[in-house]
């Protein structure tokens, strides 16, 4: 091992993971394939939040709003007697989530720090009540998507989402696509700016960047990606309810980001994986697994400030530098 340079080692690990993910459906049981698909979807969700928390320095506690809203859009546009076409329903859901993010972001970004946390939470809660109270979206019972979206182009229909293995591969590929998209984004001029914002926003403004605009665009991109995850989630489970926009969901995804370690591209994937496993293990352990989950969260904050990734690397713990904002 010692003669391998770090990049080679990473490549090797990445290759092993790709092969393992690729071959998994050949051996995995039905339950595990569904579970893995769920992890992929949550990984996309967590990656989208990581763009805000880990890279832009925006602590959004209402990220589930976009996840849930995209699911509702799919439920709303999907016909009751057939499949919605993936090619227009997915862009519609993602675009709708991004549009919502533009509205919520535009208002939230006028504030910062702890205000921002409370306001994003409050707006998500507003959406929760909207879907919960409104007579058009099934109320607290939620809404159903009876047919999985179809990827057919004309008569060419190679991918059938009713087949859980097909869905698995689609989700896996989308994780890779989102990962590559974010990698590209972070190396672009835009990415340089948002990373600067996280480190020191006033300095970026003094250097001549209209920082609000960059934060808003980052918020919109993250909202759209959360929308993609929400779309896939609703398509897979065939169901969407107000709980998907709730604060618990926002808290869970934040937990995934922290678990995996913020500010790294692959961290949220690791975080989603760990979170789902933890969730299942704790639930098997006890009926009162939420108590254990709460304990785990508290312990991680107190003892593992850099997440699981922090076990292997030593990084600075972000310190608060602004308070009265």
């Amino acid at each position: 091992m010692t003669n391998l340079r770090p990049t080679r080692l990473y490549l090797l690990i990445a290759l092993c993971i790709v092969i393992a993910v690729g071959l998994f459906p050949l051996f995995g049981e039905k339950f595990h394939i569904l579970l893995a698909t769920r992890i992929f979807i949550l990984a996309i969700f967590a990656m989208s939040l990581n763009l805000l928390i880990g890279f832009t320095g925006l602590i959004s506690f209402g990220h589930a709003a976009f996840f849930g809203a995209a699911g509702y859009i799919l439920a709303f546009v999907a016909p009751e007697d057939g499949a919605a076409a993936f090619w227009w329903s997915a862009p519609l859901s993602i675009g709708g989530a991004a549009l919502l993010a533009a509205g919520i972001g535009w208002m939230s970004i006028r504030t910062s720090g702890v205000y921002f946390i409370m306001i994003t939470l409050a707006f998500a809660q507003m959406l929760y009540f909207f879907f919960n109270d409104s007579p058009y979206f099934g109320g607290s019972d939620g809404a159903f998507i009876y047919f999985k979206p179809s990827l057919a182009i004309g008569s060419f229909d190679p991918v059938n989402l009713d087949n859980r293995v097909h869905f698995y591969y689609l989700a896996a590929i989308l994780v890779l696509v989102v990962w590559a998209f974010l990698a590209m984004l972070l190396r672009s001029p835009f990415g340089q700016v948002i990373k600067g914002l996280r480190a020191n926003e006033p300095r970026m403004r003094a250097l001549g960047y209209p920082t609000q605009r960059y934060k808003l665009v980052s918020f919109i991109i993250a909202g759209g990606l959360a929308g993609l995850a929400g779309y896939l989630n609703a398509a897979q489970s065939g169901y969407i309810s107000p709980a998907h926009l709730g604060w618990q969901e926002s808290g869970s995804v934040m937990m995934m980001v922290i678990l995996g370690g913020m500010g790294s591209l692959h961290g949220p994937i690791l975080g989603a994986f760990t979170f789902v496993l933890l969730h299942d293990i704790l639930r098997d352990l006890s009926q009162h697994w939420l108590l254990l989950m709460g304990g785990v969260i508290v312990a991680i904050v107190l003892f593992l400030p850099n997440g699981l990734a922090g076990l292997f690397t030593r990084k600075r713990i972000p310190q608060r530098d602004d308070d009265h904002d």
Partner: protein
Amino acid sequence: MTDPTMRDPILSIKGLTKRFGALAAVDDVFLDFASGETHAIIGPNGAGKTTLINLLSGDLPPTTGTIHLLDRDVTALAPDRKSQLGIGRTYQKTNIFPDETCFQNCWLAAQSRLPSSMRFFRRAHRRADIRAATERALALCNLDARADVIAGHLSYGEQRQLEIGMTLATDPKILLLDEPLAGMSAEESVRTMALLTSLAENLTLILIEHDMDMVFAFAQTITVMVNGQVLETGTPAQIRASAAVRDAYLGHGPTEQGATP
């Protein structure tokens, strides 16, 4: 060297006031800064010098009064707009990105001169024009040999240099320097003075400094502030001769260190 007072003011402030509650930190200040001059602002602690810089840079909005850049009213513009118009600043407390390399620090500054950084696809570091501006700024602040060092690992004096270098990378017309020599060793001061002297040839420098030897040797115009107000403005010789300044502030003569009362 031409007499700076003969030139048109590049920056002009009229009736500028900043109140924090009952306290007027900057109180009805009128000042003209000539294009290309080096203008030092001195005064005891609490005289309102840093507040004045913060008003000029846009970090604070003034309570009343106006700031004009040439003919343009820039009073209410935010720091990013002021920066884009050519008013750059450094901070009294070193304000860099400590986790990034010197190169990346200056890169971020230089990239701000792109018409927009809303570019999502190409790799940032492939841009040759920004790279050139970054390297120029690093060379100017004498950190070209330290380009790949993490900024947080630099010595204090080098961090101050980097702070200036970052602002230079934004290609300012006016440079606001808040105590550029504070906390530097003698050797670092000499190096920074050399840098500032070379900059003074092409830029308008407005600086706050407590080192009176430096101020009187270096500045063409000196403004003395006390309690938020301008006590006197003039050439070093005029300031040295001013009875009001001597009474209020300088005490026993300009060569004495110690602006702090």
